[in-house]
């Protein structure tokens, strides 16, 4: 009888001889089938081994096999002179299965009761990508890029190529690539090796509006040009740079264009190679910059913050008025102001103005009046003075009250107090006294 492997492969486990750690009985023949998930191999380590030693482990032994190939046959113990001990180094299975066979003969020495063995195993991921190329001529596991994963692997392709349906080989494909990250790297297929013949590649760099793209070609630039009477011409091989609202640029030759600031958020590149000649291609790093808005200028009686030398897309500025002034826009007062630099390089709102505040007409005073002492039209820092209609009324508190128009648009006698002046009637003081009669 042969035990069936577990239907659900384990990632690790332990195996030991019959009756372990007691001495194993004679006449034993036991077999274990170990399996781990596909894509893993088995690492088997003997933690203890004490099997009757014999030359070639002829009598008692533990045998490790992979697909009927013996990986090792062991007996004895660590200290025995004869026998074969596996040591503590793990035994690796080539695949995801392993067979162990333990056998003992019908004789056990009386003086030395051997306890058998104990072993642990665990699944180890197979790095398929580092495996040597098969000798059957089928080629590498992946034609371009191999990515090892737990229990498996993935093939990938360089830029400009696409994975075929066989999931391992790549086919040239350089049309329709859209690059929307704020920075990136592009290069021609096979760069720096010669580009394939009859190539027509398109690349689109398209980033968010409000950013502009800069192309920075590496020094190693080679696109075959044709010498004409008018100079080098990009007749058969070229790289075309297309920027909206600008004339397309055809690039070729052996000199790198270096840095090209496109001032656009969209750039299209077309790389064309006919079926003759040789171009080694090109490589570029692209980066982006936020568009700038004009420096906002100054606001009379106000302050623009933050004050920077340049303002970029999505930058905000705020305007605050000096004390005693209020924000005005389109003839109406606004409580606060901020504006953002837009993607088109313009501020989304024009700057407001700061107008001096006024406190309004001072409240009339019953049985009294108010005079302007200084200032203009009740504006900030204007000063008025209340008085009572004397001699019939006198000011509450004894003195006439002066009020100043403060920044909070309140008439105040000082910064803290909003005083409501009042006139109190004067009692018991007739304007005319009863005439005295001086004769006695």
């Amino acid at each position: 009888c042969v035990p069936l492997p577990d239907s659900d492969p384990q990632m690790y486990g332990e195996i030991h001889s019959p009756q372990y750690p007691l001495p194993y009985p004679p006449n034993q023949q036991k077999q274990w089938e170990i399996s781990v998930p596909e894509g893993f191999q088995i690492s088997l380590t003997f933690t203890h081994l004490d099997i009757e030693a014999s030359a070639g482990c002829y009598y008692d032994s533990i045998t490790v096999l992979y697909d009927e190939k013996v990986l090792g046959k062991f007996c004895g113990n660590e200290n025995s002179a004869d026998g074969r001990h596996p040591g503590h180094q793990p035994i690796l299975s080539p695949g995801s299965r392993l067979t162990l066979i333990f056998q003992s003969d019908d004789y056990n020495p009386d003086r030395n009761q051997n306890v058998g063995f104990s072993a642990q195993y665990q699944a180890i991921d197979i790095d398929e990508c580092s495996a040597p190329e098969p000798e059957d001529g089928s080629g590498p596991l992946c034609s371009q890029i191999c990515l090892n994963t737990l229990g498996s692997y993935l093939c990938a392709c360089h830029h400009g190529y696409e994975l075929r349906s066989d999931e391992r080989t790549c086919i040239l494909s350089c049309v329709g690539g859209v690059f929307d990250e704020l920075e990136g790297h592009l290069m021609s297929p096979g760069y720096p090796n010669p580009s394939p013949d009859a190539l027509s590649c398109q690349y689109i760099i398209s980033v968010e509006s409000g950013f502009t793209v800069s192309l920075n070609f590496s020094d190693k630039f080679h696109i075959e040009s044709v010498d004409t009477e008018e100079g080098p011409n990009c007749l058969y091989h070229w790289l075309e740079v297309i920027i909206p609202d600008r004339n397309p640029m055809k690039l070729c030759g052996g000199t790198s264009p270096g840095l090209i600031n496109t001032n656009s958020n969209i750039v299209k590149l077309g790389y064309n190679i006919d079926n003759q000649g040789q171009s080694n291609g090109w490589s570029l790093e692209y980066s982006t910059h936020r568009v700038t808005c004009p420096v906002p200028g100054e606001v009379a009686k106000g302050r623009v913050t933050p004050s920077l030398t340049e303002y970029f897309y999505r930058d905000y500025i705020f305007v605050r008025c000096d004390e005693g002034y209020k924000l005005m826009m389109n003839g109406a007062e606004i409580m606060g102001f901020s504006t953002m630099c837009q993607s088109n390089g313009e501020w989304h709102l024009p700057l407001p103005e700061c107008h001096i505040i006024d406190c309004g007409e001072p409240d009339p005073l019953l049985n009294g009046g108010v005079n302007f002492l200084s200032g203009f039209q009740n504006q900030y820092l204007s000063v008025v003075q209340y008085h009572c209609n004397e001699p019939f009324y006198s000011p509450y508190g004894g003195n006439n009250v002066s009020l100043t128009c403060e920044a909070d648009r309140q008439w105040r006698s000082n910064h803290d107090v909003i005083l409501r002046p009042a006139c109190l009637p004067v009692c018991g003081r007739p304007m005319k006294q009863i005439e005295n009669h001086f004769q006695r």
Partner: protein
Amino acid sequence: IIGGNDAAEHTIPWQALINVGSSRGGGMIIADRWILTAAHVVVLNGQVQTPEALFVYLGVTDVHQIIENLSLNVTAVHVHSEYNNPNNLNFDHDIALIKLKDPITFQAAIMPLCLPSEDDTYDTGMMGMVSGFGITDKGNQRRFLTNKLKYVHVPVVEQKKCSISLKGKPSSRTPRLTNNMFCAGTPEGGKDSCNGDSGSGFTLQSENGRFWAAGIVSWGLGCGQKGTYGFYTKVANYVDWINKIMREN
């Protein structure tokens, strides 16, 4: 006013004339909406008169001119709650307040009288001034109702003498003297307030010359007769009441 003189304009600017039915009384302005008077001026036959029944005039010393003016609008009449004078023999708490609908703007002809302060005292012998549009005399003790505001100076009388002046009079026909009253006048008579002056002010002057409301013309046995005095409601006893009524209304 017996034995007095005509008041020149602007000399007694707190004086009010109050007509109720056919009765004439007086009052004194104490605030821009309030007139102080005697309870018996606004209570007739035991009934507090309605605001509409009161005709209040200010600022003029001649009744002829006064009547040409419109009377002020009265909104409320507040009589002291303890005033109870069914038989005209009990003038205790003879005090009332009239509230005007619109505030008065003060000027030379119309000014308020001060209320007593804590420093103001009723010193015996101190000369007070009482005014009014009440009965006057034209010599020979013939009485006439005057149409000119008059005033007379009379001294504050010791309370004991006030009491003595009432002795020997039949109690069933003589009002009772209380501590809410004081009397003023001279023993020889001839100077006094009289009918029609009721509710008008008896004023004293404080040290700084300020006139204050010391008394309200209340009652007397005859007018200006020898050995009799005029009796006045003692306003100092009612300052808290006055302030309370004004504050609550």
